[in-house]
């Protein structure tokens, strides 16, 4: 079996995870910090396939759901940024135990860049890969609110007029987002220029603001970047994912 489903203990419940272990000696471990809200659902298949492709290059990859998200325990309302960092720390510990004495990499996707960067800051992972990172939580929240507004007003979504489609502060793109999480996101800022550039890789359509000169930049093409702006689910193309895994193995990580 190439992917092992498992539970990870953390204060407040169990996290669900899937560990992709290579058939060859492990060269490094990757903790995959998923994006938040609807983006977690939308990208699940893409990153399951990427994990499998990276496994083929000798990486042990652990995917997991934060407490209160996906298949992990906890209510939707219990999901917070602090909780996401705690979940990630528990997942990193398990990956370290299973992968052995190898370097660990934090792969943070979109808002998942924040818990991944926290692990980097704490020295729990040695390298940081950021995929289309959300640098400012406040801007992100604003974008999601605008998007949710469009969804609520869409005659495609709601063919019948209804009175209760006004702004709902307690949800973001259909997911509960209470005051604590809103406050955390409002204050969440990721400064790339303060990081050790030699250990930083960014994957995006273009270089984000403040990207240090010595960091590695991998440009994502449309097939791998567009999911973040789409709502409709569709089959994910495998070939670009395999090509990206090869590039990451070659340029994003040099043992």
């Amino acid at each position, binding site marked *: 079996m*190439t992917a092992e489903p498992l539970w990870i203990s953390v204060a407040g419940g169990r996290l669900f995870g899937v560990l992709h272990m290579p058939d060859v000696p492990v060269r490094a471990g990757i903790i995959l910090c998923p994006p938040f809200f609807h983006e977690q659902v939308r990208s699940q298949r893409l990153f399951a396939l990427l994990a499998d492709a990276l496994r083929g290059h000798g990486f042990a990859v652990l995917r997991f759901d934060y407490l209160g998200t996906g298949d992990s325990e906890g209510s939707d309302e219990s999901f917070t940024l602090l909780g996401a960092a705690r979940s990630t720390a528990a997942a990193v510990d398990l990956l370290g135990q299973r992968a052995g004495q190898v370097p660990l990499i934090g792969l943070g996707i979109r808002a998942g860049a924040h818990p991944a960067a926290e692990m980097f800051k704490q020295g729990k992972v040695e390298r940081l890969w950021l995929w289309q990172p959300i640098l400012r939580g406040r801007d992100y929240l604003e974008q999601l609110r605008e998007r949710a507004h469009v969804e609520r007003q869409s005659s495609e979504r709601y063919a019948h007029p209804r009175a209760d489609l006004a702004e*709902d502060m307690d949800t973001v793109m259909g997911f509960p987002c209470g005051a604590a999480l809103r406050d955390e996101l409002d204050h969440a800022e990721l400064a790339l220029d303060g990081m050790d550039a030699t250990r930083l890789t960014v994957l995006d359509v273009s270089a984000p603001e403040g990207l240090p000169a010595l960091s590695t930049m991998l440009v994502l093409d449309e097939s791998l970047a567009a999911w973040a702006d789409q709502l409709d*689910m569709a089959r994910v193309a495998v070939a670009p994912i395999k090509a990206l895994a090869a590039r990451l193995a070659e340029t994003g990580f040099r043992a």
Partner: protein
Amino acid sequence: MSQEAIVQLGGDRFGLLSAGDARVQRGTCLLLLNAGFIHRSGPFRLHVRLARRLAQAGIASFRFDAPGIGDALARSDRPLLETMRADMDALEQQHGFRRFVVGGLCSAADLGWQLALADPRVVGVLSIDGLARMGWWYRWARLRRLLAKPPAAWMQSLKRHSRRRAASSMSAAELRDWPEPGVERGQIKALVERGVALMFLFTGGAGYFLHPRQFGETYSAASKAESVQFDHWPQCDHTFFKETDRRKLIEHLAQWMTRRFAP
């Protein structure tokens, strides 16, 4: 709440069994099938929340991915119905379940319907935005909706309709895995005679279902059987975007499951 358990299905496939404790093992298990390409946790985590609500009532459920969806990385040439029946075998062998309720949203409703017809272990079908035909009542509802708008909006509606037709010539029946028109009447009759409980819910997001009388028009006399429940929620969208709609749906499904299948 009993803890959820990972169940291996063979190959790289697995699923999560909720309420798999001894108290419910000889009871009925709800199989939550993939809604389109959305992985097993469901749209907006709907399947997870439903599973945990049902577990409180002592009802087991199993969420998992069909080959090529979510965590089931490998696609398969094996017919999907065969795969699903083999998964039911695995749940029977490993956890003793011999009765299943199957279905879910959209394509999950279609697959659940076929599974019920193919396997006598299926005792219930959950069909959300499943099969319905666009007959006279659909046309009447469309006309009524158009006439309710001011005349200035009629032309806009007609243009929009024409644009949609030009962009997509496929009807709902062609896009979905539905039988030839009329076949469903014999199918529902057979399921009702077998004692299968059927729960149909149509949302406002099902563009092919505009009038509640379409249900009887589609399924004929068997639609009025005691074992058939039908609801029309025109104010809801297809994936239950609003938290209040999701809560309402989870409670609705939990009550139906409890009434029909609680141990």
